[in-house]
């Protein structure tokens, strides 16, 4: 018994199985997390090491290099990049997508443990983070306070950061703009010298005084008592009373040589939100964690956290990345629902029968919902790709059901009872339904085989559509016949109103059929002209291709802009802050669209992970803008961002600025860059080459925004010790430099404990004694004999310039010259760059490499192009086996080029770009347009087999298949229309795909309807003509032989 027979015989079982599947699907849907895109992040692990007071090159030699050497042996490593800057070393380990991040983290931890002991003493332990610099924060919370401001750090750290960090998937919670408490012992060097004391000695005294010692147990009588000395300071004022020596018979107290301050850390970052000072709490996620889930968990936790805070501390969410994801997804969900509605209307329009429409429409939710089970099972998410797959499939899943239902209806109209009509009607078309589904699977299944980052996106699309199409086929072969048997009636009665509405439609469709028959009749009688005209059309339509730009993934207007503004190096924080406030005032007035401005100035503290990843310094302002939702503003984020860039040019004091629309949401979006990487150890050499290259590259047509990755050199003072003089005084570099460091950067003497918290006690020169070179030169250095020598007698203080950051890739120093490609092709640009490289006199130990996102993009486009060819071949194979002929699939393939001309025209007219999403659209097109051709050619073949002549077979075949072709085309086009027209947040991402499909399908369907019958008659007509010729020749030969015989 065939599957449809048992389905029709057992309606209860059939319907309950489908209901069960739907329930499972809805259950999965309920559990599915939401995300913007499938998980496409490459796996990155970051190792951050802080070494306070060290310059970039110190960091490079002492921290970055030993760590790199050891980490380089981690397995599966793809790239190791590092940035060494003042105080901090950031090493980024890049792994291939799909590697197990937990395992790799353990591996990294092991390697770090091995190398830890080789790091300098003052360096803190390396910290491992399971995320990359590119990763945007999930949520930023502003904390404003009045009275509690001095204690804000502790309050936020205890009550906000700790609970938030415990949320699953949170990578780090950083607090910026809230300085930490610190006990500072500001030393007066004059007095110190007068009493023959050193900072080291004072540190020692403080350490000795601030101590608790258990002295053991003693038995007194019947009891045992513990004996202890409680020496730790109870409050910071006690420090003043410490005895640090004696002079002239009098005791010297710490307060005699120093001022003790219970204060906040000196160099810190200040943050302002809408002009009010406060702190910003930044929540970042781990690699691969779900943004929306984390954001939801954080938002859920916040009201509870607010209750634990003092009354004047107010928490405000300033950036919530999940918001735009949620809006994007809900916008897309809406369009999917519209698509559903349109498909229902189209089916009703063409069929004109309620029951038939209901039977067909039921296959949509069932096949779509099944896809949710797949998503849930594979740990997928509801994202742009999976939802696009749904909207793509909506138009296609009804096709199989329509074919089955039409044939069943024909049987019923012939007089068969619905039950047997359903079985036999389905039996007749089952094979062709399976074949046409196979054509689509031939298109979508190869997508699941792509690897790499693009693969993650295409795999999901491929699997989704393959599964949906398979389920829709099963539906069409079981549920549709079963429902037809139950619901369809012979000549159902139509209500008067329905007839009144539908009869004009029926009339219109009838005259459309006749019109088309006339057109086809004309076309196949003027075959040559039609072929010439369509060829000319094709060539003309290809021409606009050069006006279409390419990008990887379209940029999205998410209402956020991030700006980094740099003042001349060395500008004091107070000045920087004033300028930031000015800018804020200006922009708040100029752009009413601004919802919120948040900015930070100054150097980030070492414990602030987020801050330390950004470029920071006393001269740098980092600003975050949030704009009103897209519907409430007329200007796009990109226009405003350009305008902000222009405003910045009017400030002469600003040396450099970078405005990023989208708030640094660098998810492969944005413009594509072409990078030239100059590798080499010597700064001067690489700088010279890079600068020369930048100049030449800037002159190449089509390459703009040329910039160097190495930032401006910062001035710094270096002390050049004279080794001989050091030796004469019984000193060495290590001792002398430690003296220097302890006086300027300070010496952490001990920890002050209060209420379970620890605060550092820092012994350092008072701020007024470390503001001039003179002060440095006057530093007194004591040797082992206790003799003091001034620093100026041991060496010189010189001013030098050093790069503030040292970048390395795969253990080599490099400078990147990056440029944006616009208005030229990649091969021309690369040729130009190669010529520029050849022109330069390259020092021997330098080498140059070309890279950048543009290259990656070109590579993946190339991959997709070859995939496109493979898919075309697969489709041909499926069709050829179905028709058991080579000419029929060849005729059908003529629809494909016109699909591409439609794509080019629609992209050019709408000004869209060719990107990954439009590529997805193009790949889908092949399957859809070919299906139209199959329907036509199959029926013309059928007519021929039933004994019609070529021309009659073509005209009547075309006439009877016009409605199904228009119906499947319209369901797909109208299914996509909401996507193309939607203006909701994130629509930029799928718009180009929808435009591609609509344009390609519309043009190719219109031309398919004419060109396929024409080419069919040319091919098959030739075949017939050849046969006739052969027969005629045989006849003539016979006649000749007969004549000869006579």
């Amino acid at each position, binding site marked *: 018994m065939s599957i449809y027979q048992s389905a029709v015989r057992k309606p209860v079982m059939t319907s309950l199985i489908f209901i069960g599947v739907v329930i499972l699907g809805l259950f999965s849907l309920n559990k599915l997390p939401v995300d913007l895109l499938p998980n496409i992040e490459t796996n990155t692990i970051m190792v951050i090491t802080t070494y306070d007071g060290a310059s970039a090159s110190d960091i490079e030699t002492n921290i970055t290099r030993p760590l790199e050497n050891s980490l380089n042996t981690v397995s599966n490593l793809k790239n190791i990049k590092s940035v060494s800057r003042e105080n901090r070393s950031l090493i980024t380990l890049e792994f291939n997508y799909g590697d197990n991040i937990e395992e790799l983290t353990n591996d990294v931890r092991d390697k770090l443990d091995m190398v830890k002991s080789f790091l300098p003493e003052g360096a803190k332990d390396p910290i491992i983070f399971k995320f990359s610099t590119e990763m945007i924060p999930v949520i930023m919370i502003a904390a404003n306070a009045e009275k509690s401001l001095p204690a804000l750090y502790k309050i936020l750290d205890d009550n906000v950061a700790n609970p938030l960090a415990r949320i699953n998937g949170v990578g780090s919670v950083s607090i910026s703009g809230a300085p930490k408490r610190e006990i500072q012992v500001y030393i007066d060097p004059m007095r110190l010298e007068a009493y023959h004391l050193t900072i080291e000695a004072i540190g020692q005294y403080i350490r000795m005084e601030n101590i608790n010692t258990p002295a053991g147990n003693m038995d007194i009588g019947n009891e045992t008592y513990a004996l202890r000395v409680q020496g730790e300071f109870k409050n910071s004022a006690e420090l003043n009373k410490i005895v640090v020596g004696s002079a002239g018979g009098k005791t010297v107290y710490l307060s005699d040589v120093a001022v003790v301050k219970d204060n906040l850390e000196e160099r810190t970052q200040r943050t302002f939100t809408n002009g009010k000072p406060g702190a910003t709490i930044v929540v970042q996620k781990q690699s691969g964690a779900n943004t929306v889930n984390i954001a939801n968990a954080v938002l859920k936790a916040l009201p509870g956290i607010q209750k634990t805070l003092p009354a004047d501390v107010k928490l405000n969410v300033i950036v919530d990345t999940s918001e735009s994801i949620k809006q994007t997804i809900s916008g897309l969900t809406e369009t999917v629902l519209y698509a559903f509605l349109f498909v229902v209307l189209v089916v009703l329009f063409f069929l004109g029968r309620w029951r038939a429409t209901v039977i067909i429409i039921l296959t949509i939710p069932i096949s779509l919902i099944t896809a949710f089970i797949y998503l849930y099972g594979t740990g997928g998410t509801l994202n742009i790709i999976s939802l696009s797959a749904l909207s793509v499939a909506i138009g296609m899943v009804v096709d199989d059901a329509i074919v089955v239902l039409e044939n069943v209806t024909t*049987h019923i109209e*012939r*007089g*068969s*009872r619905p*039950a*047997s*009509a359903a*079985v*036999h009607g389905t*039996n*007749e*078309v089952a094979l062709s339904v399976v074949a046409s589904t196979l054509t689509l699977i031939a298109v979508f299944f190869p997508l699941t085989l792509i690897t790499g980052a693009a693969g993650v996106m295409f795999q999901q699309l491929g699997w989704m559509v393959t599964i949906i199409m398979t389920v829709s086929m099963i539906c069409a072969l079981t549920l549709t016949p079963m429902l037809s048997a139950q619901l369809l009636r012979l000549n159902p009665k139509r209500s008067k109103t329905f007839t009144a509405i539908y009869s004009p439609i029926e009339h219109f469709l009838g005259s459309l059929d006749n019109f088309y028959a006339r057109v086809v009749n004309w076309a196949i009688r003027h075959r040559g002209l039609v072929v010439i005209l369509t060829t000319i059309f094709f060539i003309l339509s290809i021409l606009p291709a050069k006006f279409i730009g390419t990008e990887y993934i379209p940029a999205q207007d998410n209402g956020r802009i991030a700006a980094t503004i740099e003042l001349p190096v060395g500008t004091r924080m107070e000045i920087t802050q004033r300028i930031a406030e000015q800018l804020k005032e200006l922009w708040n007035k100029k752009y009413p669209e601004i919802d919120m401005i948040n900015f930070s100035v100054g150097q980030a503290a070492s414990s602030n992970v987020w801050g330390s990843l950004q470029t920071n310094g006393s001269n740098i302002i980092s600003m975050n803008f949030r704009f009103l939702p897209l519907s409430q503003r007329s200007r796009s984020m990109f226009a405003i961002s350009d305008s902000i860039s222009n405003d910045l040019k009017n400030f002469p004091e600003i040396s450099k600025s970078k405005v990023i629309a989208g708030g640094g949401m660098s998810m492969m979006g944005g413009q594509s860059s072409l990078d030239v990487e100059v590798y080499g150890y010597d700064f001067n050499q690489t700088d010279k080459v890079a600068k020369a290259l930048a100049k030449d590259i800037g002159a190449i047509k089509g390459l703009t925004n040329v910039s160097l990755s190495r930032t401006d050199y910062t001035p710094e003072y270096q002390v050049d010790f004279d080794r001989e003089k050091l030796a004469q005084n019984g000193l060495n570099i290590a001792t002398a430099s430690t003296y220097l460091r302890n006086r300027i950067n300070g010496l952490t003497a001990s920890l002050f404990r209060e209420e379970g918290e620890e605060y550092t006690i820092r012994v350092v020169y008072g701020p007024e004694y470390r503001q001039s070179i003179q002060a440095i030169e006057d530093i007194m250095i004591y040797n082992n004999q206790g003799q003091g020598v001034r620093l100026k007698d041991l060496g010189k203080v010189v001013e030098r310039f050093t790069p503030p950051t040292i970048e390395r890739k795969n253990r080599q120093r490099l400078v990147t010259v990056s440029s944006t490609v616009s208005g030229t092709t990649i091969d021309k640009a690369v040729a130009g760059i190669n010529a520029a490289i050849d022109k330069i006199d390259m020092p021997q130990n330098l080498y140059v490499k070309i890279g950048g996102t543009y290259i990656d993009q070109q590579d993946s486009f190339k991959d997709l192009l070859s995939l496109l060819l493979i898919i075309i071949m697969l489709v041909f194979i499926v069709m050829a086996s179905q028709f058991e002929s080579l000419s029929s699939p060849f005729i059908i393939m003529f629809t494909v080029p016109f699909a591409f001309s439609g794509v080019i025209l629609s992209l050019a007219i709408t000004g869209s770009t060719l990107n990954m999403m439009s590529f997805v659209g193009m790949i889908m097109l092949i399957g859809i347009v070919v299906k139209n051709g199959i329907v036509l050619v199959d029926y013309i*073949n*059928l007519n021929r*087999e*039933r004994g019609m002549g070529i021309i009659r077979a073509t005209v009547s075949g075309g006439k009877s298949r016009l409605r199904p072709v228009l119906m499947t085309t319209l369901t797909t086009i109208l299914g996509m229309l909401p996507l193309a027209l939607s203006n909701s947040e994130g629509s930029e991402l799928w718009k180009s795909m929808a435009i591609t499909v609509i344009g390609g399908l519309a043009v190719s369907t219109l031309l398919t309807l004419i060109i396929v019958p024409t080419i069919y008659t040319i091919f098959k007509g030739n075949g017939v003509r050849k046969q006739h010729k052969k027969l005629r020749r045989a006849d003539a030969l016979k006649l000749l032989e007969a004549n000869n015989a006579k």
Partner: protein
Amino acid sequence: MKSIFIAYDQAYHEQILSILNFNHVRGFTAWPEVQGKGSKTGEPHLGDHAWPSLNASLITIVDDVKVKPILAQLRDLDETSKLMGLRAFVWNIEDGI
């Protein structure tokens, strides 16, 4: 004893069985899928790409008196939907076991 051979569109099968049942005919031999083509009118039932529908056929041996009512009922059935196709032929049965 006469035999009735009926060739008909597959979809008629159940109706034909019920006609036999109605006339108290118990025995029959049926072929569920056969090809066929009418001599004058009607669509061919060949089960191929051009003519996908198929016939079924059935032969039953009945008492002479039953032939007339059965044929009458079959004719009525054929009249209801001429497009599907139903034909019946009667032979004499010489002998049997």
